[in-house]
């Protein structure tokens, strides 16, 4: 009898005051999710003090309601990640006040489906397309035989000098790609530099030591170096054992490379790749043995360490320009021109953004947020 009275009480309660419950397919997701939203303003404006919200779910063709749980009173969104795609669901919200009174509001049915495009990333897509079009255009010009001037980069010009110095002193060259795995673009760029360095080492018959932190990088480096020795016409001078895997432990690697430096005293140290805290340990040890040191990395924090401890440092994009610069490949050089054009576009956008923010239109910059 009490339950019947309570049910009648719930049915006669006004639902118009608290409403706006909407259920819809969660946008930009892989499916199996429905989002329920409601307006909390009427709750706050109401004289009754609401203390909890309960949420229930029912399949449209079904009969019983499933409890999904309680929601904090201030929340206005519930995401149900446990639904089947293509099945209609209705959601019920029960708002209970401090006296035990409740208001029930049902949503319209909603179905979940997977999306093929995340519309919140449209801005990224536009950026990617601009990059592809600009770089693609300059690749095309490079393929057509266009000439691209690259300003002299001291760090790259010094590689010849560094290899020559090692040859004169009869000491080896030590090359390190740091802690990056082969998936990192900085490591791929490092392999390109290695190819040029190995070619020169082969020509001058100078031993090239390359201790590795990653076995995949070690295997790739062996292949790259061998090809360079073949290209230089001296495959007989290639020593596979000089390019070897050490350990994947960060400080174990630093200790081992330091040991090699102190014992073998290389005349030239080349640090090209992704580095972490071991950068300064390596560069300072190299400095203490008097080796000429050239570093290039995409790790901005480590750049400052390399700058104080090395003779030459390739900063930022200079490092990625190294392969084209050293190999004089017009296709690679053409992409540098494309990078410059993209930098110009970014510069213009930055100026426009600064003007916009200064003029009070900063909200417009929300289009740059990535979803």
């Amino acid at each position: 009898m009490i339950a019947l009275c309570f049910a009648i009480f719930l049915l006669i309660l006004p639902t118009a005051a608290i409403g706006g419950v909407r259920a819809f397919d969660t946008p930009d997701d892989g499916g199996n999710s429905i989002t329920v939203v409601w307006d909390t303003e009427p709750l706050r404006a109401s004289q009754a003090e609401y203390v909890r919200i309960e949420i229930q779910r029912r399949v449209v063709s079904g009969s019983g309601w499933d409890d999904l749980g309680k929601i904090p009173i201030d929340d206005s969104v519930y995401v149900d990640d446990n639904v089947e795609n293509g099945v209609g669901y209705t959601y019920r919200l029960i708002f209970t006040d401090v006296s035990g009174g409740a208001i029930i509001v049902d949503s319209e049915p909603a179905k979940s489906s997977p999306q093929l495009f995340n519309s919140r990333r449209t801005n990224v897509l536009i950026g990617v397309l601009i990059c592809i079009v600009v770089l693609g255009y300059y690749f095309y010009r490079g393929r057509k035989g266009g000439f691209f001037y690259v300003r002299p980069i001291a760090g790259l010009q010094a590689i010849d000098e560094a290899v020559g110095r090692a040859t004169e002193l009869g000491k080896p060259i030590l090359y390190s790609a740091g802690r990056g795995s082969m998936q990192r673009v900085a490591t791929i760029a490092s392999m390109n530099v290695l190819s040029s360095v190995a070619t020169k080492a082969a020509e001058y018959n100078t031993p090239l030591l390359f201790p590795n932190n990653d076995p995949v990088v070690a295997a790739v480096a062996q292949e790259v170096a061998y090809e360079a020795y073949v290209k230089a016409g001296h495959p007989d001078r290639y020593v596979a054992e000089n390019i070897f895997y050490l350990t994947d432990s960060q400080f174990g690697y630093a200790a081992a490379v330091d040991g090699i430096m102190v014992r073998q005293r290389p005349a030239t140290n080349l640090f090209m790749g992704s580095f972490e805290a071991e950068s300064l340990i390596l560069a300072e040890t190299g400095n203490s043995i008097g080796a000429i040191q050239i570093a290039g990395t995409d790790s901005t924090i480590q750049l400052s360490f390399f700058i104080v401890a090395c003779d030459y440092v390739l900063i930022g994009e200079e490092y990625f320009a190294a392969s084209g610069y050293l190999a004089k490949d017009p296709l690679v050089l053409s992409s540098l021109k494309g990078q410059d054009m993209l930098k110009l576009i970014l510069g213009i956008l930055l100026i426009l953004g600064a003007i916009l923010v200064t003029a009070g239109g900063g909200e417009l910059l929300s289009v740059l947020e990535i979803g």
Partner: protein
Amino acid sequence: MHRKLPLLICFALGTFMLVQFFVPHKASTALYEAILDWVQIIYAFSLLVGAMMLIKHHAVIASGRDAKERPFSILILMGITVMLVAGLFFGRGEGTVFHWLFQNVQAPMQATMFSLLSFFVASAAYRGFRARNSQAIFLLVAAIIVMLGRIPVGEIISSYIPKAADWILNVPSMAARRGIYIGIALGTIATSLRVILGIERTYLGGK
């Protein structure tokens, strides 16, 4: 063909990795996760190759005539053997020989190497901050302000020092850093595109 096939695989997977960022569909996510799993599987196998490479390298030195290098290579080979035997035959859990060796030999050695960093930072900072020319003096003054701004005595000297330190870090330093970030990002995009399109193929090597 032995060069075309890897380039084709690189193009297909590179394009997929680019496209999947925009596709939230479960099929795309599942394929992406499968690729990441395969990277781990390949890495696990490559560790075996790496271990063999390491043993071969040090076996050559240990049996060679280089007296300077030989003791270290023998030590490494002994270390590998001891850890291998301890791990394979006596387990790797807490209280085992393997665990004891890791906790009492390897971990302290790694900590020691990390600790050396503080001395290297000091020597590098000394060299970097020497007032050789006007630019170095500028750097030295900025460094002194930032260092003082980060310790309590800076606040005691003047309340402006921490504010000046924050300004140096948040305005000129940040501007320079962002310039480098933009250069690195564009370099990364251009290099990735060169690799995907097969323009950059040095990493393939070849025998």
